[in-house]
């Protein structure tokens, strides 16, 4: 048992209070500590990824109590890669927040940030349903704090809506967990997987409700229709680095669906009988449509980006809803990709919007300083987000399309992905054209008098301010370049998820696991795909 498994949770959890109390009057020190913590987290996450790559499922029995009686942390490839993703994103976002001074616009930014990281990592690592709830709450309450960081009327109003929506969600989470426990008498994910297999359909009403309600809960986080409503206003009004960090929050919901609805309530389980996929798939398609229309119809940049996140979630969840290993692989690749793409765009938007007197309104306005640089970065970010080559979005999209070749998914799935892409492309092109191209024309007509009073923000962005955006875009390039090895890792990870027996054996020890008919989903009908 490696103690490092818990490090991504404990490190920020110990760091955050220290930052909040010891360094609460010294922003430089707080930044240094926070940054060092983020760096260390990246290092740890890399180590965990390497550890998980041996294919074993690593279990950490908290309090030295055996599962399912105590809480366990479980490190497999899936959790390792998501923790790593979180760590890298955190480093990028943190740099931006410090470089732009966002972290000084309210108190306790770094402490809340570290707690947020802790919550996210915990959600990825825990192997216990109720503990998942606890980590959801941690990451949510930290996100509430970060959401309203800096204050302001609209932000607080949007923050209030965000909090209310998620509190309603938390209530449902509890009800779902109660049902789950009432039906199975256990909370450990592996144990649940075992117990759920034993439930015949004739006695499955309770567990089915639990599965469905859990899906709804996770769908809130994943911003799926019809509960995506909270996302646009939240992301559009959150402080930019926070919106960028939130790029991973939606993924937590997606992760939970992958983990729980693939591993416990998978399509082959008698009790739930593919129930969730039936509903998840069309919901994902509608989500994608809503996001795409939102991008096309946006009047402001921040909502536009927020809707592009909605669209990307729809795209990804289409693949998740297929509930096959390969589709999950595609979803995971797209997950990583869309996290960086969204982060890049939100960070860039911050650089631009803070320099525009018009804010994020998509109205013609004089060009800001460094228009060319921003335009280039926006172009790259948009290319990533819209899923155009050469960045990773395109590969992700291809993989998802490839994974949805099954006739039951193809018509709706492909139409949604392809048509959605078109709307997003057009929407982003319109926005970029107004922001960066048309502005060059407007500048020519603006009398010099208007320039006499330059806005304080209208100074050029320092290299340090631009670096995080570039890094995020660079990540999408790297994802594309090293798509092969990465996909290998992810594919092994999703097979691990679908092959629950290993997970169960690792957590509960070797035992009789009720057999589930497991057709090899890929081998029969997938001549294109070669085993990596």
């Amino acid at each position, binding site marked *: 048992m490696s103690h490092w498994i818990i490090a991504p949770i404990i490190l920020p959890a110990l760091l955050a209070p220290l930052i909040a109390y010891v360094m609460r009057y010294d922003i430089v020190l707080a930044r240094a500590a926070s940054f060092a913590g983020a760096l260390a987290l990246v290092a740890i996450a890399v180590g965990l990824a390497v550890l998980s790559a041996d294919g074993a499922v690593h279990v950490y029995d908290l309090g030295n*109590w055996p599962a399912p009686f105590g809480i366990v942390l479980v490190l497999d490839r899936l959790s390792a890669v998501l923790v790593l993703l979180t760590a890298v994103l955190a480093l990028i976002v943190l740099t931006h927040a410090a470089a732009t001074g966002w972290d000084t616009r309210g108190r306790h930014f770094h402490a809340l940030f570290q707690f947020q990281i802790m919550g996210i990592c915990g959600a990825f690592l825990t192997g216990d349903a109720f503990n998942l709830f606890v980590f959801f709450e941690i990451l949510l309450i*930290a996100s509430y704090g970060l959401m309203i960081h800096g204050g302001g009327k609209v932000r607080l109003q949007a923050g209030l809506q965000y909090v209310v929506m998620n509190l309603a969600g938390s209530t449902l989470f509890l009800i779902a967990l109660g049902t789950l426990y009432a039906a199975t008498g256990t909370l450990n994910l592996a144990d649940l997987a075992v117990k759920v297999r034993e439930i015949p359909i004739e006695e499955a009403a309770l567990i*089915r409700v639990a599965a469905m309600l859990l899906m709804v809960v996770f769908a809130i986080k994943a911003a799926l229709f019809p509960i995506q409503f909270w996302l646009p206003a939240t992301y559009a009004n959150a402080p930019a680095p926070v919106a960028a960090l939130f790029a991973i929050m939606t993924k937590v919901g997606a992760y939970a669906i992958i983990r729980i609805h693939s591993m416990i309530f998978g399509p082959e389980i008698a009790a739930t009988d593919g129930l969730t996929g039936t509903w998840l798939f069309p919901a994902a398609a509608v989500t994608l449509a809503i996001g795409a229309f939102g991008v096309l119809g946006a009047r402001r940049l921040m909502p536009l980006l927020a809707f592009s996140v909605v669209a990307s979630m729809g795209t990804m969840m289409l693949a998740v809803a297929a509930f096959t290993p390969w589709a999950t692989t595609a979803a995971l690749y797209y997950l990583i990709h869309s996290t960086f793409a969204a982060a890049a765009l939100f960070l860039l938007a911050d650089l631009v919007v803070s320099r525009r007197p018009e804010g994020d309104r998509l109205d013609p306005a004089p060009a800001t300083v460094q228009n060319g640089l921003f335009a280039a970065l926006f172009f790259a970010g948009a290319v990533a987000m819209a899923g155009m080559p050469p960045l990773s979005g395109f590969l992700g999209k291809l993989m998802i399309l490839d994974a949805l070749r099954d006739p039951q998914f193809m018509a709706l799935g492909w139409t949604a992905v392809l048509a959605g892409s078109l709307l997003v492309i057009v929407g982003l092109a*319109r926005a970029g054209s107004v922001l960066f191209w048309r502005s060059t024309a407007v500048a020519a007509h603006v009398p010099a008098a208007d320039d006499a009073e330059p806005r304080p923000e209208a100074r050029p962005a320092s290299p340090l301010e631009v670096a995080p955006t570039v890094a995020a875009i660079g990540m999408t390039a790297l994802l594309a370049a090293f798509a092969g090895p990465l996909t290998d890792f992810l594919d092994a990870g999703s097979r691990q998820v679908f092959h629950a027996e290993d997970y169960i054996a690792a957590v509960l020890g070797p035992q009789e696991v009720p057999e589930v008919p497991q057709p090899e989903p890929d081998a029969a009908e997938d001549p294109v795909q070669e085993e990596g």
Partner: protein
Amino acid sequence: MSSGSSLLPIIAILPFLGALIPGIMIRAGRTACASFTAIPTLLALVMLGVLAPAVMRGEVIQAEIEWLPQLGLSASFFLDGLGLLFAGMILGMGLLITLYARFYLSGEDPMGQFYTYLLLFQGAMLGIVISDNILLLLIFWELTSLTSFLLIGYWKHLPEGRQGARMALAVTGAGGLAMIGGMLILGNIAGSYNLTDILQQGDAIRASDWYLPALILILIGAFTKSAQFPFHFWLPHAMAAPTPVSAYLHSATMVKAGVFLLARMWPVLSGTDAWFYIVATTGLVTMVLGALIALFKDDLKALLAFSTVSHLGLLTMLLGLGTKFAAVVAVFHIINHLTFKAALFMSAGIVDHETHTRDIKRLGGLARLMPITAAIAMAAALSMAGIPLFNGFLSKEMMLDAASETVWAGSHLAVPVLATLGALLSVAYSFRFISHVFLGPVRDDYPAKPHDPPFGMWAAPAFLVLFVVLIGILPATFVGPLVAVAGGAVIGGELPYYSLKIWHGVNAALIMSVIAVAGGLVLLALHRPLDRLWQVAPRPEAKVIFDGLIEAAAGLSRRFTEGLHNGAISRYLAIFVAASVALGYVAWTGGGLAPADRAMLPIPPVVAIGWVLLAVATALVVTMHRQRFQALVLIGVIGLMISVGFVYLSAPDLALTQISVETVTIMLLLLALHFLPKDTPRESPLALRARDGVLAVAAGGAVGALAFAFLLRDFSPISDYHLANSYEGGGGTNVVNVILVDFRGFDTYGEIIVLGIAGLAIFALMETLLRGQAARRLRNSDYSQDRSRDRHPLMMVVATRAMLPIALMVGVYIFLRGHNQPGGGFIAGLVVSIAFLMQYMASGFAWAQARQRVGYHDMIGWGVVIAGLTGAGAWLAGKPFLTSAYGYIKLPLIEEFGLGSAFLFDLGVFLTVLGAVMLTLYSLSRIARYAGETVNVEPMDYDPSQRAGAVGKGGE
């Protein structure tokens, strides 16, 4: 395969690497920049030359680099005749354009950017033609859309440039997406995304059920890219780009990508009725329509653009005919069109550059002023018209030949007539170009004084025209082998009989050709009246329609989005509730329920009364919620009943927690309500309230029924283990507490972190509120209602003095016994908080806080850190986080008492809870003070002992 194979990827990557150069070199000057830009192109061209001989011999050069094997995507390249032809065209034209652009672009244009985009585009285009993997091809395909977007929008200050770029992106992007679908289906049928594999499986593919969808999707991609009707409209608007771009993308390369794809896929997709009717018909219509429009365009570049549309239609038609001969003709015409059309574009660019206008109506007589340009342009235009001795003639003849033998839906006449019409129109607009621009008298009203440009500018078109003539005269010598090898690659088998020569004798094609030339000249003569007719004739303006469509789509999207996301969280929540209930119901009905095997417990009357209180209070909260304070009082009843219920149902810990949390929560709500309106206005209309009522009842019924369902059924939970091991393993008899601090201590650790975060976030928000504009509003607000004058009544203060220590004792007691009896750190924290709250209510927060020695931040910090370090302490023993350790200590006189790590952990819990509650109260009180409340210096309003002069003073 061959040693050349390693060159292929290098050729593919060179333009992309080269794209970095302009940015670096631009500081060295424009000429240096252009020269260095040419280097990668030149290098690639040289490498291509190295590979050419082998390809000409019929070899296919292949290279493969693994990329994403799981998907079937690899960086595979192959070079056959078709690829060689196109690669040569792309690189060769690239060089010429680089040269031409150096002179064409003005000093104000960002040249570095231009060359970067140009090289990126070149790389993308090159990638398309040498990809051996259709997914890779798709990548390059989309890249051409993106890079052309950048190039068309290069002059970003011009609205036409921006709109043209967006339109091109939208149309070709949409086509690209369709093609993704088509290609994936194709790969799916073929079982491989490798082009060479797919090309082998034409029969299987054509026989597949998925053939037609694949065909249509791929054709949409090809047609949009190659500006085929009805997607032709974007191309003329792309002419807003600088002329070098038009010459390169919109005549020579990108628009040919669609044609290339048709040629590439020809062995696989052609030969079916669907192919013939879709492709040939589209090509034919495009050819005629493009030519017709070209005739009436006054903008030189527009004329050329529509002529390009027409010629692309011609190529498409040829490939669509499905005969090997026609396919070879298409290959030949690709070469010819490249040479004359690029030359024409460059000439038009020169005219524009020199006269500052492209309007044909303002031009004429330029032959005398700029003879070199005129010569070049006229030679190219004659070729375009299909006049003998120029290469256009040859391929046009062959095209007419192919057309003359085509039967379309039983008609022998349709295709030949339309093809002739197309040729006729082509003659007309070509001659119009010649006569209305270069011939006629010299005018005196040119916007600028025209003269021939420097050599550098006309060198490129001249070079191309040289080929126009050479091929026109000696076709077999100059392009014979290339046509053969490329044509062979297209048809993927034996070449048909054809001959590249000027004179084939008098045949149908010649007659059609003569008709075309004669008719074209007549049409030109009638141009003026026809033009007038054209101008008044109603015709759809593609741009208006497209813009309208996009605007409508955007507008609809906006209305849809804003209608859906209208900011009404109450609606979002209603949908959420409805969806949860509905989905839950669906899930429920899909499975059965085990028989109820658990006997129901009796309901004593007192419990029933408690239920009545709870239910009535809830109903009252709902009905009276608009009187906020009253609702809060009623909430108190509900909380109390729940606590009692917990006691009754054997959950003393829960009861203690519930009642104390409840109290603190109500305090917070009261504190907040102080600032908020005291009443809620009645705002929702009756219908909405009815809807909410229905939802509420549905949700309540559903949750209640769910609970009832499981309450009647037994189960075997894991908690037997906890009961069995609580004392032995956890050292406590209160199993709930042992679960909280030991079995599931990690939950509790998370839980106190939630509290800590809440404290921090609340504090941070308070600070923010007091700094911003809100602070001013707060200062100006008047919260002084009709208040009682006694703030800190004597009785309360005195009673609190006695009760605070007692309450603290209770807190300590509850904390210490928690492990064995109901209680614990959390409840103790709340009890102590409530005790302090009492003190604060008595004497005011500020007065009490001034006597407080420990900071709340510190408490939270210490709490979280102590809990964390206690958990981490287990690492020292090599045990996992939160492994508990305890022992029994015997002190003399005192009985044995247990001391465990759980105690420390619980201490952390205690501190955090206390700190968080206090920090929250502190924050709210800060706001109140900011809002103008004063701070008392003494604990009570008035100490009557002052009256007696007995004791000096109250405060310190």
